[in-house]
């Protein structure tokens, strides 16, 4: 039975960074992931990573942009930590081998990004997340004697002792179907977001909110769950992400009249306003009949204004995406995009060390809510968030481990219980619905009613739907009866995770009766600082319903002001 000082669930950027940091701090470490680490969804982050590394820049400017981007819902103490530590973290990445793009003098080049007051996004072409993820995995391979890797292991539950400490997890070896108890002094969740609750989404199929739900189920509070980011540029054809880097390099957004409509919504920053602003502007244009393409459901992204050589060098991925999936040569003609679900700002509530209110349980990355993103995350701040708080969680957990003893082994009866639960899913009779149908219904409903524009009736409908689906999920059946790579049964468990996340999201969105960041209520179109400058926390009641409460926003130096781009 494996036992470690620090057990990391999920091998995304946050998880891998946490593993390396904890190992460096002398802890025994295991990292466990339901996919091979380089398949983690961090790989899809394209545009870059923000850090005030230019001597003319100042981390405070970065911090202010982030606060403003969050629509003043971000906790400023956490934002200060993230932005102040950003330059060192990015330099560390450079030192371990990330192939950051250089300028003519050999220094790291920086590109413009949305909501930023100056160029401060370091990048590797448009595969920045991939490059960093693979370089961290190189380091994990280097640390192969110090970090135990459990690749393709699926965590089904977190373990908790009688005092409420988190003491490890139960996980299933996907290759053999074997259940195993992992005992740990500390568990760090790095399991990513819950984008699969929406359809379409830019998120991978693995982004099913596992960690959020598992933490919620053992009593950890969630925060800012109503804040769902719609990325302004996703391909109409299939929802693929077109990096914000395209607009960073100068691309324009055009409506049916060929007009750069951002002038009306954000005259100063134009296409580089923050994502919630741009997505809302696009959706407004589409809703008011100025969309383009079949059915007028899209907006043109015109990359032809970027010099071709630069496009080929710095936006290679989207050249290929355009060519392969839309039949468009983006160096010659505009491409059809629209807003699409991309990121969840909310997650498991943590402090600046990634610690949740449950002793021994940490969270970092998209699964967590520190909250540095508040109502809206700035582009290229997510990679930074994962790395800074991944490292801090790893270091802090290692320190904590040094002072406590290994928890007692979980009784085998607990494993038998878990095993019986999984078997009961496999054995369900085929008189319910298919898991895939319920998942489709969930995604469609969320994308219809919990999207860029929201209002009471739609949200109420969404809540009813989610609750109905939750009931249906209890009898949803699967086909696979095997143990080796039974992805079907894992899909059923993931569906449960997703439904938890969706329910909390809808509840919080119903609760927040104002418009802030990504939450835009057409029935409450104004930001209301008097009543709503606070986080909504969601905890699980004994009877499996979300319970809402509030927590204050930490303000250090920047008082809320009107937000204009």
């Amino acid at each position: 039975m494996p036992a470690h000082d620090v057990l990391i669930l999920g091998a995304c950027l946050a998880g891998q960074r946490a593993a390396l940091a904890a190992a460096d701090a002398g802890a025994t470490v295991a990292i466990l992931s339901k996919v091979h680490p380089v398949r983690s969804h961090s790989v899809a982050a394209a545009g870059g990573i923000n850090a005030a590394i230019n001597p003319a820049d100042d981390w405070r400017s970065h911090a202010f942009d982030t606060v403003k981007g969050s629509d003043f819902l971000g906790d400023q103490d956490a934002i200060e930590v993230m932005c102040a530590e950003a330059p060192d973290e990015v330099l560390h990445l450079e030192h371990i081998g990330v192939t950051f793009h250089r300028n003519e003098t050999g220094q790291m080049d920086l590109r413009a990004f949305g909501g930023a007051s100056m160029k401060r996004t370091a990048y590797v072409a448009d595969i920045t997340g991939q490059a960093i993820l693979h370089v961290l995995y190189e380091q994990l391979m280097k640390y192969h004697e110090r970090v135990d890797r459990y690749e393709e292991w699926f965590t089904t539950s977190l373990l908790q002792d009688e005092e409420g400490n988190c003491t490890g997890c139960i996980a299933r070896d996907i290759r053999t179907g074997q259940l195993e108890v992992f005992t740990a002094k500390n568990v760090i969740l790095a399991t990513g977001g819950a984008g699969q609750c929406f359809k379409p989404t830019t998120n991978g199929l693995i982004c099913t909110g596992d960690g959020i739900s598992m933490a919620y189920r053992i009593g950890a509070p969630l925060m800012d769950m109503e804040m769902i980011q719609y990325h302004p540029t996703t391909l109409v054809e299939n929802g693929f992400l077109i990096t914000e880097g395209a607009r960073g390099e100068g691309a324009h957004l055009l409506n049916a009249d060929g007009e750069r409509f951002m002038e009306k919504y954000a005259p100063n920053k134009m296409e580089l306003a923050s994502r919630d602003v741009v997505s809302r502007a696009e959706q407004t244009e589409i809703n008011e009949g100025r969309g383009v393409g079949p059915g007028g459901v899209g907006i043109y992204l015109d990359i032809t204004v970027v010099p071709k050589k630069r496009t080929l060098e710095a936006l290679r991925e989207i050249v290929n995406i355009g060519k392969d999936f839309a039949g468009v040569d983006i160096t010659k003609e505009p491409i059809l995009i629209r807003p699409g679900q991309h990121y969840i700002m909310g997650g498991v509530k943590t402090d600046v060390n990634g610690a949740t209110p449950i002793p021994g349980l940490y969270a970092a990355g998209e699964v967590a809510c520190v909250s540095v993103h508040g109502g809206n995350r700035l582009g290229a701040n997510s990679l930074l968030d994962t790395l800074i708080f991944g490292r801090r969680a790893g270091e802090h957990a290692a320190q904590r481990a040094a002072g406590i003893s290994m928890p007692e082994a979980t009784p085998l009866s607990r494993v038998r219980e878990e095993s019986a639960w999984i078997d009961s899913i496999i054995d369900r009779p085929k008189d319910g619905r298919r898991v895939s149908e319920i998942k489709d219904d969930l995604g469609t409903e969320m994308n219809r009613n919990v999207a860029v524009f929201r209002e009471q009736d739609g949200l109420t409908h969404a809540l009813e739907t989610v609750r109905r689906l939750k009931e249906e999920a209890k009898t949803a059946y699967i086909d696979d009866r095997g143990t080796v790579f039974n992805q079907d049964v894992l899909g059923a468990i993931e569906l449960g995770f997703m439904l938890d996340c969706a329910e909390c999201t809808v509840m919080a969105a119903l609760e927040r009766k104002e418009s802030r960041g990504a939450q835009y209520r057409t029935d409450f179109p104004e930001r209301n600082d008097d009543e709503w400058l606070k986080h909504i926390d969601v905890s699980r009641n004994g009877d499996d319903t979300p319970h809402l409460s509030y927590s204050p926003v930490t303000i250090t130096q920047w008082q809320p002001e009107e937000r204009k781009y």
Partner: protein
Amino acid sequence: MAETGKPPESYTLRIRRFDPESGAAPYWAEHTIELEPHRSVLEGILQAKGRFDGSIGIRCSCKAAICGSCGVRINGQPGLACHTHIGRAKETSRDGVIEIEPMGNMPVIKDLIVDMDAVHWKKVQRVTPWLINKEPIPEREYLVDRESMVDVTQTMACIQCGACVSDCLSMEVDPLFIGPAALAKAYRFVGDPRDAQQYERLQDLAEDPHGIYDCTHCFKCIEACPKGVAPMNQIMRLRRRAGSDHHISDRNNGERHEAAFVTLVKDHGLLWEAELLPRSHGGNSWFGKFAPKAGLELADSLPVITKAMLRRKVTPMGALKPHKIPSADLKQVQDIYDTVHGRDERLELNLYITGYDEDEAGAQEPAAVAASGGGDGGQTAAEGGQPGMTPEDSPTR
């Protein structure tokens, strides 16, 4: 906007199934699904899995050719299921049914899922896949040449999907061959100016009998790669660095073999096969043939040579004398050598360095040959996603 608004069509998938728990042999299962033609084969598989049979095993996540999970063979060709248009897959099928199998060269675990740890990742671990820093580590970033970072970024673009490993012919013959993906990974460090052990890495890979000289230039990996990493090109770069730059004379005769190859073609316009073997042992001169090891290998090869003679593929005179080509043709061949060797710097095109100028006129020119001095000259810009290629030419189609 060529792709939007097309109605769904019906496609039949023939999926290779294998259930390790059943004790039964692999079999084919067919499912018919409906999808717009610009959707991917992966979406087809997922529809079959969602609607008809949830037990179909395939790794997948991002659906956007970036996570590298869904490497499979489609109609016999390796690639990513998510990166292959279902409409085009139907066009390239034998009988209108899209055939999907697990990748090759790796053991199958279940259905379309192969054991990448046992093959691919083991080989990656073999090439010391982490940066060994040049000391001292600077306080800020390493100051390095802009082009060099863009150069290694091509190999960073590798998503470790295994498509190149799947169809590597050398690996089929020699399962110990380090292989295209891991060697491309090796170039990522050898080409990285921040790495302190480029020479040691090259020596290691040149001396390994399953290393850089084990590749046979079949181009399969370049064709298979969905990301334009062109693994074979990276292997050739490793060879150029090992041979031409560092003159690492390896025990596999790799460096001498290449030098002999290049010289023979330069001198005669065509390869003089009989001279290649001795020179590969004895060095690039006429006297090379007296190297004792050359004699041994010649003796070893006698049965093959005899067979070839009996079949009149070679004649004794033909072997002893070089091939002759018209002098104008020979001049043309030698002009290529002069052009390539006459360059001040080695010109290495890359996924990101396309040789295109800002102006449109320049952009109409096809990419120049990315040949090199001292190498085997077999490297052309056959990279995936090469600008100027129409989507139909894209290698994974």
